[in-house]
Every structure is written in C-alpha cells, then in structure tokens.
C-alpha cells in the first residue's frame, strides 16, 4: 500500500514486516525507475515457492524492507548518541534500498553458474583424464559488482539518485569500498546487517515457518556505540544475538536447503551451465562475465528477470540433448529430482573423516557404473553438498600474533576481515569485545561446527518410476559406509 504524505516525507509504504516505511522524495524517484521496478520480477527465494506456496515475495519487497530496517537502525544509533550527517544518512538509506539491485534472475542460482560442477565432471572415469577449467573465460560478476554497474551506469537510476558522484558514493557503501565509513558500511554487511535482519524475518513470514523470527526490537533497543564508534550490543541482549545467528542456520536447514527446493534449484543450475557452455546463441544465456556486464548496463537489463530463466527452461524442454531436455522438463512440470540418499553431518570442521565424505567418495567411484546398469544418463543424477557454518567465525588470532601486531594493524585487520564479527559490551565497559570472546555463549561453543548435507538425486520419468527409484535407493543405501 502506498499513500502520499505531507510531513516532509513523500510517500508511505505499509510493509508486512516493518510496518510504516516513510519514503523521501528521492527514494520514491529511485523506486519508480524501470531499473528498480525490475526487482518486482525477481523472486526472493527462487524456487522455494514450489514447496512453500506463499514464499513468492520479491527482491522489490525485500529491498523496501531493507530500507525499513536501515531507518530503524539509524534511529536507534542516533538515540544512542551517534551523530550522522544528513547527506550520509540519505546515502545509507539509498544504499539499503539499492543493495540488491544487481541480482540475477533466480538470484544466486544464476549468479553462481561458474561454480557449478556437472555430474559427469564429479564422478571418476574409467580412464582418468584431467578435466580442464577454462580460466581464459571471464566469470559472471557477483551481484554486488553488477549492482555497482547498474547504479553508476543506468541513466534512470543515476538521475534519480542525484547525479554520477552521488550514485558512486551509494554504490561504494554497498560494495564496501574504502571511501565509505567502515562502521556505517558495516551496518549493511556485518552479521547484524540490515540485509539479514530483513530477509530472516521476511523469508520466515512468507514461507510460514517460525525459524527466522528474530527479536529485532530488543536488538535495536540494546544497541550501543563506544567512544571509538564501535557498534555493538549490551550483554543483556546476548540471547537475542545468539538467536539472530542461529536463525540463519535454521533457515538454511529448513527452507534454503529443503530437499525438494534444493534439488529443483540444482537441476536448474546444471541446466543453465550446460546451455551457457554451448556455442549456439539460441538460449541467450550470457556466455561470460563480459557479456553480463554489457547486458546490465543496457536496456536489456529490464528483461533480465525470472521470466528470462523460465523462458530458457520452457524452450529447453524441446532440446535435442537428452540431459538438457530431462532437466528442463523436471523443472517445467514440477517433477522434482528424487532424493536417493542424504547423509547429514554436523561435525567440528577439523574432523577428518565422516559418513558424508565416505558417501561422496562412493558416489564418485560407483555412480558411473550404477547409471550404466540402470541405463539412465549420468547427467540425470545430481550430486550436491550444501553447507552452512553454525556461525561464521572471524579469525581467532593467537596471543602471540596479537602481541606482534601494531595497534593500527589490529584496527585495519578488523575492517578487512571481521565484518562478520558481532561486538558485545560486557557490563559497563566503554569498548566492546568480540562475541567470540564470550565463553558462555552457545554459538561460540558451536562456532567450529559445520552442518553439511551430502545428497544424491535422480531425475527419472519412466513408466516404472516407482520401482526404479526404490531399486536405486536400495543400491545406494550403504554408500555412507566404508
């Protein structure tokens, strides 16, 4: 819902997560550009709506929500004595609004196409020959780089933001360049960043699961700023901080890595990689990073939406390649890849051998034979290893290392590498310490733990589907044992 206001703000948006969000005139101009409106055509959670039907919210809604979260943090920071100039505040608000402007169709699914390994590349061959990665080809740029390109090159946005210089300043904030104030930039990128505050709440609400329902009000009320301008939380908010970190972990387990969602997304990733690597131009999948960079700086950006991938999938259902056709038809008709086996592992990252590793090794050595035996193309088996750390720990330097560092070095290191670190004010201390130094914290105890799922799926649509799936499951049942 949008309505006009007459109190210095231009418009009011009523948001399901943050309530009333008052927009400034410039923000309304930015939102009204075709470049920004594109975000309405990007689903926030890619294929999650295939399992959670109401998870259809968009990058547009999340971007407005990120602005809402930024407004709340700025208000809280000011309440706690941080003075921020008006222009800086306006730039931070714009950076929050625009932080996801560079997302690809289906978000990370397409962005990470260069990282995708095809199944036949994963499994061992009878006569091993090294597979070559072509490092001459430029890789797809990440969405932050794409965002900076869009913000500084798309004429509609540059004009709405207020000129080239300002557009660059805003892009510098969300790409974390040195020109941005490190602590203010941290508001967008650290563990208590506005992106995470909004997506946990919004994804959780939209999917209808409670795992991302963080206590944002309590966190904001317990924000504190040190004389050195370090932002942190009072120690009484420790449980809310732990919940914030664990919420991310549980949302990965329940929603982002859901077996059906992840299986469908993996099928789509492999499909896009296969089509991207082809020489023909039929599908218009950008062949390399340079083509993406050209595309996003042109008007073609406006149609670079989820519909682009959906069009590719639709056309690929009639492709001459069996594997491409099978992958596309599974996605198009929502016939998810069937999970043959999953090995879940939650272990200390230092642990060398576990059932997951054994399972993957068996897949690599036995899958080719299994595919031949059942006469199913290898490309219709999908191997994946989604992974999430309980928390993303910063480096824990030894006392010796710290003792050798100069004071300035410690501060610089904090900026470059500890963006994930959350600071806590213990008792009445003026300066905060790292959460990782709080021994009684639950998340610190599990900081060295990682949760990983090792999965093998198959796409098979023969008339004997049920029987074949059961036989395949029986064959791989013990592949997690050495």
């Amino acid at each position, binding site marked *: 819902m949008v309505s006009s206001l007459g109190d210095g703000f231009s418009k009011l948006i009523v948001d399901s997560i943050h309530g009333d969000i008052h927009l400034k005139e410039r923000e309304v101009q930015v939102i009204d550009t075709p470049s920004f409106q594109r975000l309405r055509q990007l689903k926030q959670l890619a294929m999650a709506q295939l399992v959670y039907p109401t998870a259809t919210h968009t990058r547009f809604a999340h971007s407005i929500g990120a602005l809402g979260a930024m407004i709340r943090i700025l208000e809280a920071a000011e309440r706690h004595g941080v003075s921020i100039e008006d222009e800086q505040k306006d730039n931070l608000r714009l950076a929050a609004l625009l932080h996801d402007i560079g997302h690809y169709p289906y978000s990370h699914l397409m962005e*990470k196409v*260069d*990282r*995708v*390994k095809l199944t036949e590349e994963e499994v*061992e061959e009878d006569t*091993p020959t*090294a*597979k*070559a*990665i*072509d*490092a*001459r*080809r*430029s*890789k*797809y*740029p*990440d969405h*932050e*780089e794409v965002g900076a390109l869009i913000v500084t090159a798309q004429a509609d946005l540059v004009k709405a933001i207020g000129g080239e210089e300002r557009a660059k300043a805003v892009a510098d904030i969300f*790409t*974390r*360049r*040195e020109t941005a104030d490190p602590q203010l930039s941290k508001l967008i990128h650290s563990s208590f960043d506005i992106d995470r505050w909004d997506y946990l709440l919004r994804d959780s609400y939209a999917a209808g699961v409670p795992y991302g329902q963080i206590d944002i009000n309590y966190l904001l009320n317990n924000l504190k700023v040190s004389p050195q301008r370090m932002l942190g939380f009072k120690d009484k908010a420790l449980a809310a901080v732990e919940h914030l970190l664990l919420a991310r972990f549980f949302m990965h387990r329940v929603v982002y890595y859901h077996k059906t969602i992840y299986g469908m997304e993996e099928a789509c990733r492999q499909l896009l990689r296969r089509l991207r690597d082809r020489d023909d131009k039929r599908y218009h999948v950008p062949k390399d*990073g340079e083509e993406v960079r050209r595309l996003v700086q042109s008007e073609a950006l406006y149609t670079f939406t989820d519909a682009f991938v959906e069009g590719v999938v639709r056309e690929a259902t009639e492709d001459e390649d069996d594997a491409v056709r099978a992958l596309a038809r599974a996605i198009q008709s929502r016939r998810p890849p069937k999970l043959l086996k999953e090995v879940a592992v939650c272990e200390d*990252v*230092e*642990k*060398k*051998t576990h059932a997951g*590793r054994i399972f993957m090794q068996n897949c690599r050595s036995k899958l080719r034979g299994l595919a031949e035996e059942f006469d199913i193309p290898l490309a219709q088996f999908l191997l994946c290893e989604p*992974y999430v750390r309980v928390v993303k720990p910063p*480096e824990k*330097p030894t006392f010796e*290392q710290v003792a050798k560092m100069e004071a*300035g*070095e410690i501060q*610089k*290191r904090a*900026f*470059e*590498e500890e*963006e994930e670190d959350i600071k806590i004010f213990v008792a009445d201390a003026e300066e905060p310490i790292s959460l990782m130094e709080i021994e009684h914290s639950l998340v610190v105890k599990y900081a060295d733990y*990682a949760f990983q799922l090792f999965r093998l799926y198959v796409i098979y649509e023969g008339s004997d589907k049920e029987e074949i799936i059961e036989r395949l499951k029986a064959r791989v049942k013990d592949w997690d044992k050495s």
Partner: protein
Amino acid sequence: MDRQQIALKLAVDGLELPFEINSFEDRLILQKAVYLAQAGGVNLGYYYQWYLHGPYCPALTRDEYAIDYERKQEVDGCKGWKLDDESEERLRKLRKLIPEGQRREVRRKLELLASVHFLVKRRQVHQNDTAEITMTLKRFNKDFSEEEVGNALRELVENGLLTG
C-alpha cells in the same frame, strides 16, 4: 569444492605458493597473488575493491576458508582437474614476480605490485606519474619509496600486466 574454488586452488599451486591461511600475512599474500594472477589474464572470478591494504576481495577470503576446510579433512577436491594450458603458462610466467625469501618480503612485494596495478588500472592514476602513485600509497600509510614504485611499474610492464 565448487569449480571456482578448484580453479583458485589450482592457480595458487600454479604460482608455486603454499596454500597457507593461518595468519593475516598468509591471507594477504594469497589475496595479492590471486589479484596479480587475474591481472595476468587468469580469470578466477574475484572482484577486488580497494581496502586498507590495497586490493582485497571478501569472497576470496570465504573461498580460502572453504578450501582449507576440505584440506583439513584430507580431501583433495582438485583431483582430476587442471587449468587450461594457456592459463597454466600465464601462471608460470607470473612466478617470477614472487620473490624468494621471508614471508614478510613476499607480502611487501606482492602488496606493492597489486596496489600499483590497481591504482593505474582502476583509479586511472597515470602510470608515468610515480610520484602521484607513491603519494596515494602514503595516504594509506604505505611506506613505499618512489624508487620502489618505479621498479614495480617496470616489472608490471615487463611481465605484461601493464602496457608500456
């Protein structure tokens, strides 16, 4: 490891650098070495911004930790993979940029080369203006002399990372 991480590990191997990330110095060396590899035409997919120690890429740090995680589990994720021959050759030529000696010296040299390259290519500081480059580095508390900057520029040109 995903394909990008495999390519990263193979590139570091191609430069004959140890994949060490235990200390800040270790990670800084990897950051700058990967930057120079990319400047030399080996596309690994990392986008650098200027931070306090010169060009830096947070995504690269994340991938370094992911590779290290598998290494600790004694998994060789690179088994059966290689880079294309042309990129291997480019890396071989870039090895001469890495000095032999103490890690501290390696770090200082790579930081200088990567920073100078970034300033010329991305900040449009004119590469004939060694004084301006030196001054820019000093603004970031980098104690490199004009002579060192001049030598770095010459080395970057000689190795094809900058045009003469």
